[in-house]
């Protein structure tokens, strides 16, 4: 019963475990997929921010180009100074001549601010290779504080081509100009700046448009350099006479403008895609410059799920995307858990039903066995009486009453057979319950064989079997004669049943040490290979034309073997060329003292 329960538990638990594991795997995979998709989305989002910044640099470039165009070829230092004073984007202007020698600002006639600028950018301005796009090898002049200058040169080339790509907006040029001229007091310079301040890409591209037509700068680019670990920017362009005009951009203003390109909190509503996540803009020192988005909880401890380094000239800056929504897939788990629980309960119910059915069946079987036992016991007493009175009647008969004697003989034999059958049934159920005890006594094996043969003599004679006993075991040994006789009964009964008219039935008997052996060899049709494997199994009956029409219970050989094993021996089927040969071995110690342990038998 316990075994069945355990088995059922296993049957229930194993699929549940497999199901659980599979759902965990599925969930993980799904999560990974979602994460991947999400990451891709986030990357697009961050890239769009980067694009915004690039757009700003392009507009700034356009404004600076227009500023440069306003300055005539040999602008006075006064005009240059005025420019850096009036343009909100420019912190300082510098000019290098065709041999890349600094001609403005000159240290001799500079303001304090200009002198400071010259000190900070000394190495920078003395590196002419920075102001061309064909520099590759000259890295030796770089100071340690400007390591990224050369690495980022390719990006400069990228940016350079941009003004030309924005030539599409010719039609709106007039209206925009009209708009910007509303304020007559603003100088032309501040027109340009105000249009970029208004953040209209059309307006500024118009300016770039005009400038592109007027003066085609032969070369230009952005230089990102570090001053005191802070990223600074210089925009430069070469003029027609191969001078370099450079603009140092106000760092604070640049950051302010970049921040103004980014959304503020009022633009982020509950339906906004950025709901429950934040994007952080970090500068080259890893400090937060700006962040936007919203989280339900404090996001300080969260690590960003995506980081994007910005493109040149903001090379060392990065955007970080942090969110809390991905780490909590509770709903999905609940669903899966529910499925598992339902399956578990369904399987458990099923298992319980099976278990109940099974126990009911085994109870019924037990009842049946008990019933058969009782019936067998009840049959034994009348049968004994039948036999007793038959024998008594036989003794009183005269010798002439041959016919009556024969009839009584048949009654006697049949009742003996019935006794054997009942004995078989009883020992079967005893063996099943493991309750058979051997009743050992001193006897000879030969005696047992003779007793049995005597009982079978009429049947053998009738069936045309001629038993021949070769006995070498007439010494007294310790054995259970009843048990031995039962084994022999079964074997002879089989021979009688299946080897009719086979002639000689050889019975050999010998002793080796503490063991006695009995071989019973008939000349019948024998047992085929297939059946020989299962003839000792309970309720097995070899089914072929031979066994057709012969009744049997199918427990005979199985009981015989079990009894032989109980008796410390075995019953095996020997292979022979003709008929069937059974070898019975029994543990039969010569004396009581030789018996190693009665219990082990």
């Amino acid at each position: 019963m316990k075994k069945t329960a355990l088995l059922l538990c296993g049957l229930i638990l194993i699929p549940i475990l497999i199901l659980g594991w599979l759902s965990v795997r599925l969930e993980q995979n799904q999560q990974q997929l979602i994460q991947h998709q999400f990451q891709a989305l986030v990357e697009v989002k961050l890239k769009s921010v980067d694009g915004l910044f690039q757009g700003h640099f392009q507009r700034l470039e356009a404004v600076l180009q227009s500023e440069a165009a306003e300055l005539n070829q040999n602008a006075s230092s006064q005009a240059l100074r005025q420019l850096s004073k009036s343009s909100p984007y420019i912190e300082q202007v510098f000019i290098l001549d065709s041999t890349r020698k600094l001609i403005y600002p000159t240290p001799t006639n500079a303001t304090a601010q200009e002198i400071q600028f010259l000190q900070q950018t000394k190495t920078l301005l003395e590196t002419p290779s920075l102001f061309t796009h064909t520099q590759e090898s000259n890295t030796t002049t770089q100071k340690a504080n400007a390591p990224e200058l050369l690495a980022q040169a390719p990006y400069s080339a990228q940016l350079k081509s941009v003004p030309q790509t924005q030539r599409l907006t010719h039609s709106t040029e007039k209206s925009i100009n009209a708009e910007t001229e509303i304020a007559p007091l603003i100088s032309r310079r501040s027109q340009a700046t105000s249009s970029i301040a208004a953040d209209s890409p059309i307006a500024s591209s118009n300016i770039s448009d005009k400038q592109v037509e007027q003066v085609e700068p032969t070369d230009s680019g952005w230089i990102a350099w570090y001053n005191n670990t802070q990223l600074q920017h210089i925009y430069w362009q070469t003029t027609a006479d191969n001078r370099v005009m450079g603009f140092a951009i106000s760092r604070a203003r640049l950051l302010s403008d970049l921040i103004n390109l980014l959304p503020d909190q009022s633009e982020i509503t509950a339906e906004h895609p950025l709901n429950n996540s934040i994007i952080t803009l970090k500068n080259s020192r890893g400090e937060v410059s700006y962040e936007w988005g919203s989280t339900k909880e404090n996001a300080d401890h969260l690590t960003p799920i995506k980081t994007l380094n910005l493109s040149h000239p903001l090379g060392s800056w990065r955007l970080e995307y942090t969110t809390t929504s991905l780490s909590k897939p509770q709903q999905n788990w609940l669903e899966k858990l529910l499925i598992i629980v339902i399956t578990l309960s369904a399987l458990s119910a099923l298992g319980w039903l099976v278990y109940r059915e099974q126990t009911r069946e085994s109870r019924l079987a037990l009842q049946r066995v008990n019933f058969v036992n009782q019936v067998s016991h009840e049959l034994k007493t009348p049968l004994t009486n039948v036999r007793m009175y038959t024998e008594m009647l036989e003794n009183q008969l005269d010798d002439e009453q041959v016919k009556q004697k024969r009839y009584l003989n048949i009654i006697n034999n049949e009742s003996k057979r019935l006794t054997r059958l009942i004995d078989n049934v009883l020992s079967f159920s005893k063996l099943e319950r493991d309750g058979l005890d051997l009743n050992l006594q001193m006897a000879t094996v030969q005696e047992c064989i003779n007793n049995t043969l005597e009982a079978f003599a009429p049947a053998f004679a009738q069936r045309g079997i001629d038993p021949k006993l070769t006995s070498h075991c007439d010494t007294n040994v310790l054995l259970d004669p009843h048990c031995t006789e039962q084994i022999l009964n079964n074997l002879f009964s089989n021979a009688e049943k299946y080897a009719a008219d086979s002639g000689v039935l050889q019975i050999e008997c010998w002793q080796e040490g503490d063991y006695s052996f009995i071989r019973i060899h008939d000349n019948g049709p024998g047992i085929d290979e297939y059946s020989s494997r299962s003839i000792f199994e309970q309720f097995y009956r070899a089914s072929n034309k031979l066994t057709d029409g012969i009744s049997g219970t199918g427990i005979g050989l199985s009981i015989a073997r079990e009894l032989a094993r109980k008796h410390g021996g075995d019953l095996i089927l020997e292979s022979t060329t003709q008929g069937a040969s059974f070898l019975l071995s029994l543990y039969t110690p010569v004396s009581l003292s030789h018996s190693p342990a009665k219990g082990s038998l």
Partner: protein
Amino acid sequence: MNRYRLTNIKHLLLALCFSAALAPLSQAKQIDLQVNLATPVMEAERTHNAFIKISLEAFKQDQPQKRIPANIAIVLDKSGSMQGDKLYHAKKAAIMAINRLSLNDIVSVVSYDSRVNVVVPATKAGDTELIAHSIQQINASGNTALFAGVSKGSQELRKFLDMNKVNRVILLSDGLANVGPSAPNELGKLGLSLAKEGISVTTIGLGLGYNEDLMTQLAGFSDGNHAFVEKAEDLAKVFQYEFGDVLSVVAQSVEIRIKCKNGVRPLRVLGREADISGNMVSTRMNQLYSEQEKFIILEVEVPAQEDRSNLELVDVDIRYNDLFNQRNEQLSSNVVAQFSRSQEQIDEAVDTETYEAAAEQVANEFNREAVEKRDQGDIQGAQSILQKSADYLDNLGQALASPKLIEQKEEALKDADELDDEQEWSKKRKELKERQFKRSKQQSY
């Protein structure tokens, strides 16, 4: 709504009629430029260091009902430290101030903690009810993204940026900027850039937690005002002053160019940032207020001259945007020094008022140095600087018989006394910074 608009149009028409009628009258210059020498007569045959005061004063407006439209962005700190009383008063003060604005004015409100929120995008100051409602919704929490707050505030101004309007960011903060740039110099540069666009930033520091260097630099470079408000209840008052200032602006984008002549060498400009290059000095003020005098003090070295000679020291050239007449104006003036051997003549000629103003700025410079020394932990050094300042003021005060300078001497001595009070230093420093700022910029409140 319809009626509202109608009265609006009426107003406009009225204003148009008025301005048309009064146009010829208001042709006169709005600004009075005065260039004075502290010592108009100098001792001959000796080089001198002389103070020149260049002062600008706007005349009183003849038409009090007419004023320049304002474009104001109020940037409120709503970080965690503002919680409670501070934010309550700040909101109240902002709403009260906005109620003073009229339909022609544009207002926007930006609040910031770790992130920035544009509470009221730039809009006409008509529907004050709605604006007040939006302001009331502000709740305190988080950090202080001051830089981003000012950026967004100025961005709101840019939507209606107009050189003929008074463009101003009013920043209120009670804490250290801890998200984004936080160096005073960086915010100063932002202020400088905004000033170039015609935007001033007024900074109001609330309580004892803010960074006064950052706030004064931001205000200083953009030529706004600065105020230290210790108690939140005083905010309303300061906002009223500030709006009073904003609404009384008469001229903007004032550029001052000074050319030193005849071998005169510029040494320094006291109080304000200025570029000195060779013999040229240039500086700018973002705006001039009605009935307020703004000045700069220039210290020059004058070469030795003969007795009884005259020498033209500097040419002063001023350009500004006259907001009433909406045009650029130009003023110029110069100053001539006399040289004499007579001490009596020299003493008699001293321009007390100019000298007082110059001395005040010199003392202010001393004060600045003293704070710097105190920051380095050199309390005694700071005290000795203040002592020097007091001596200087005392000498000059005695010579000029100026009670104002004597008073300032007492002040310097008191400052020196209070320097070594560790506990009160944070507050004292804020007071000193505020006073320095107000003196050098001649702030009205």
